[in-house]
């Protein structure tokens, strides 16, 4: 694992460099003139003013020059100032990142506990319980996050008044109170996916020979589920949880908007619509980093849970060698 580390880091850096250029070029090529959006209201748009704004933000320079300037400053730890907010990009992101990370973490707790729980339940209790879980998760998977958000706000926020409808709250309990509905809305479809994966992985593990062997050796059903079935199914479940969580880091926009949360998702949307290059660039890169880091961690953790998977992707010991 340690041996592969420099290679992984080099790969990460190359990914970031390529991603940063693609993102920069895409924002540059998007329709709309940033100078117009930076100039205030329409009645104040004069050619002189637009020229002054362009000069102030170096918008007349060619793409490569602008990218080069950004990269050079970025390497020195300066992500620049937001066009729209005039504040340091690092400060803007720093103020919003905790909300998004907390939201994703809370949602992860939801989908891991409820998703894995319901998946296990469906796999263990065949029959009506299984059908109910499959039916429920099919329904949950088909509800888009924004619909779930509106429904949750409408029922638990406005009608019942149990949860606040906007803002991120203060203090630990305030945070939990404010983020419960958004996290649940965000977790809902992920929960369904995880539940399915868990159920499937468990079913496959049940069918394997060593479970039969364990059963023949007289272990209780509970021991079989915990020691053999769940343990063998854990690999795909953890991988899937990691991937879903990594995907969430880039997908909080809808929920943040619906619940009036100031996270990096809503920051990104407003940055894109106002052509705020420095912020768009930084937030998207952060999301790329988040995705790469989480998926790398999953890669690293996977062999620890399931020694059948050896690091570096080479085939490891045969499963037969591992049965108790």
């Amino acid at each position, binding site marked *: 694992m340690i041996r592969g580390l420099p290679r992984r880091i080099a790969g990460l850096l190359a990914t970031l460099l390529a991603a940063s250029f693609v993102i920069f070029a895409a924002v540059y090529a998007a329709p*709309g003139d940033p100078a*117009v959006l930076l100039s205030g209201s329409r009645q104040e748009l004069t050619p002189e003013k637009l020229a002054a704004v362009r000069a102030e933000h170096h918008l007349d320079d060619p793409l490569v020059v602008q990218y080069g300037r950004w990269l050079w400053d970025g390497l020195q730890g300066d992500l620049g100032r937001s066009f729209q907010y005039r504040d340091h990009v690092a400060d803007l992101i720093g103020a919003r990142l905790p909300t998004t990370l907390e939201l994703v973490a809370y949602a992860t707790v939801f989908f891991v506990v409820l998703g894995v729980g319901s998946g296990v339940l469906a796999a263990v209790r065949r029959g009506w319980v299984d059908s109910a879980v499959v039916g*429920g998760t099919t*329904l949950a998977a088909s509800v888009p996050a924004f619909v779930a958000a509106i429904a949750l*706000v409408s029922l638990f926020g406005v009608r019942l008044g149990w949860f606040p409808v906007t803002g*991120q709250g203060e203090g630990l309990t305030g945070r939990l109170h404010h983020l419960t509905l958004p996290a649940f809305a965000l977790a809902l479809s992920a929960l369904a996916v995880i539940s399915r994966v868990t159920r499937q992985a468990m079913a496959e593990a049940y069918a394997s020979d060593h479970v039969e062997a364990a059963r023949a050796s007289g272990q209780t059903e509970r021991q079989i589920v915990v020691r053999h079935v769940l343990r063998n199914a854990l690999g795909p479940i953890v991988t899937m949880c990691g991937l879903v969580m990594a995907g969430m880091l880039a997908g909080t926009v809808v929920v943040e908007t*619906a619940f009036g949360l*100031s996270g990096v998702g809503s920051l990104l949307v407003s940055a894109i619509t106002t052509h705020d290059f420095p912020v768009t660039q930084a937030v998207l890169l952060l999301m790329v980093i988040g995705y790469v880091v989480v998926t790398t961690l999953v890669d690293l953790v996977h062999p620890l849970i399931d020694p059948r998977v050896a690091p570096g992707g080479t085939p490891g010991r045969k499963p037969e060698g591992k049965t108790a």
Partner: protein
Amino acid sequence: MRTKLCTTAVGLAGALLFTVGCSGATSGSGGATVDPAKLKLSDTTSKASGAATTVNWIVEQEPASLDMDAQGGSSTRTVMANICERLLLLRPDMTTTPRLAKKAEYTGDKKLVLTLRDDVTFHDGAKMTADDVVWSLKRHARPEMNESDEYEDVDTIAKTGPSEVTITFEKPSALFTKALAGDAGIIMERKAVEKQGDDFGTPGHPDACTGPYKLKSWDSGSALTIERYADYWDDGVRPLTKEVVFRWASGSALVNSISTGAADGAYLTATGPAAVLSKKKGIRAYYGQSTTAWSLSPTKSGALKDARLRKALSLAMDRKGIAKSGFNGLAEPWATPVGPGAWGYEKAAFQKAQKDLEHNGAYTASPSSDDIERAKKLVEQAGAPGEPIVVSSDGSESQTVITNAVRGAAQKIGLKVTVKTIASSRYDEFFSDPKSRDGFDLIPVDWYISKADPAGFYDNGLTGNANNWLGYSDKGYDALVGKAQQTIDDRKRAELVIDAQAKFADDAVWIPLVQVPSVMVLGDKYTGPPASMVSMYYPWAADLGTKKG
């Protein structure tokens, strides 16, 4: 245990399905409409008598920067109106009165002398000096700054006494004093701004103004708090509310915050949320004057170069229908391209002129069969164009309704219309890049002016003006508007503006549709602030308090 978990999940899913079906009331727009006939416009609300510690207020967006020279926007203005004061004050009835300047007098027609109050202190306690005033005005005038266009005619700005600043002009500028009641007249403390450098206006830094409230804190992304300035220089102003906490939300998040009492009030720019909220218990909606109006702006690219076709189209427009379905009944059919909030002087004269326009020319609230016949005749005279008229729409609710109304009107009078939907960022380009308008013949435009003077609008019809997309050119009109903008006497200027306005309407340079009032929603417990568009320039929080003392 496990079974319980499962039934909870299934139960939740069921509840979701149920609520999806009936959550329309909170979705932010559509559904509720207000009867336009019952819409009462009031500039102010009844006076507050009780103190309040903290009032929660919603703005539609987080302020981008508190440096008003760098960034405007209605949300920032709504917050900063309480913190920053101007040389003159725009009052809730849209008239102006002296403020930081106790006198602003023209001596000769190209010289304005400002006599400053000498008891004004900034929020850090420093006294306001003539140097601060000169520095602030020169900062506004810099070409990259928001308000620089207001300073186009200014020649020099100089201190001419310990409490006196004199401004000279290249040509007489009647609108300049109106601009001094807007953001172009904000006075900041030079030392405080220069000390902060590039950080001025960003979170975590103090303001540099003199208003009844000062910036307490701004947590980027979450909330902005202003608090009563204890050493406020004007003893006549006694704010009842200790602090106002601003948070931001739009659409359904805004509606939900106010319906659940998480926020106590908001000024709204969209009519959808206003219509929904005005029906909720414990919340009152107040409607006030604004300068905002929706119009159709023709371009020179197609058949609408012919004034007869523009007039014909205008005659066939169902403005009542647009007000009802596009603006939830919260708009009013209107014959001029600026709302009544622009009438900061000679109100009666402007009101009469508006009424006159409603009875002749090319205006109808909803067209009768006579109007349609007249319109058809005009089309006949001009000859129906072979190519369809291309109307742009950015897909928003208002623009969709307006473009459908254009299609309907055109059909009745034998014109063909194509609607082209564009992205909203593309829409903004229409205002800066003439090439972006190629291929579009008619563009719906919502326009507001920051000054309470219609003369500030009509330069959009001048020969060669950047907003004159039609390429309209009329020497008589140019002379009238030019003269109006240089006529300092209010009564005489109003006469000239009314003449120019009649010419503008007669030639259908733009096709006015509806005027949209300013809306304030407020929890039942509170009262005091004005409902008019003045909320962007007047320290409204200083009037806010509870009903019972």
